[in-house]
């Protein structure tokens, strides 16, 4: 997903990051992912796994994905995002497999020249990811487990 940015101050080709990984996302550096000497703003969203659900203690979480379709859907999402907001780089990374409580399951980062674009794009991207991208979360409790369903 390479493109040439129209901003004359920032002429380099830009490679978006779309990644599914079983590794922890914690070590990723937002600025390394999407930072740019020509971009003044980096907005991000990180979703972390919660330790409770309706008062029940969550022991662990597992993510499963339809991997090729996830990649197709995320690339569509980024293409729509770029048609709505002028941004520099986009990174969307989702963790799969086991995800300990408190750790990050998803990370979205967007850089832009004007902060409003990055901020709005990130908000839209996480809403869209939760609504369209075929990933499933199973919460395991002390007394059972449950496939979750996104509310929106």
């Amino acid at each position, binding site marked *: 997903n390479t493109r040439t940015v129209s901003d004359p101050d920032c002429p380099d080709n830009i490679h978006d990051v779309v990644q599914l990984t079983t590794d922890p996302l914690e070590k990723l550096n937002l600025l390394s992912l999407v930072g740019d000497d020509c971009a003044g703003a980096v907005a991000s969203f990180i979703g972390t796994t919660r330790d409770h659900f309706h008062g029940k203690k969550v022991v662990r979480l597992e993510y499963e994905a339809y991997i090729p379709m996830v990649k197709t859907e995320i690339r569509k999402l980024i293409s729509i995002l770029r048609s709505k907001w002028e941004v520099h780089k986009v990174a969307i990374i989702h963790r799969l497999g086991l995800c300990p409580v408190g750790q990050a399951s998803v990370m979205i980062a967007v850089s832009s020249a004007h902060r409003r674009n990055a901020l709005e794009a990130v908000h839209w991207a996480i809403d869209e990811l939760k609504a369209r991208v*075929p990933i499933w979360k199973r919460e395991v409790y002390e007394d059972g487990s449950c496939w979750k*369903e*996104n509310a929106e």
Partner: protein
Amino acid sequence: RDMVKEVKLLYFASAKEVCGKDSECMNMDDNATAKDVFLKVLENYKDLEQLKDSLVLAVNLEYTSIDSSRPVQDGDEIAIIPPISGG
């Protein structure tokens, strides 16, 4: 031409648990639609009925309704998609 078409079925999350497998191949008649595929899957796995109203399909990585009259092609990959919960 009275060909039989082979489609590849994928089951995810709760659908995988109910069907007891994550994938299989299935033969369909020449003029079968996505809806026909879904009805045949429902017939094979009675317990899927309980999830029926929340399922959608993906045909070759594109979301498709369970009522779709889209004809299936030999080699199509058709996924049974329960409600998603990514993020």
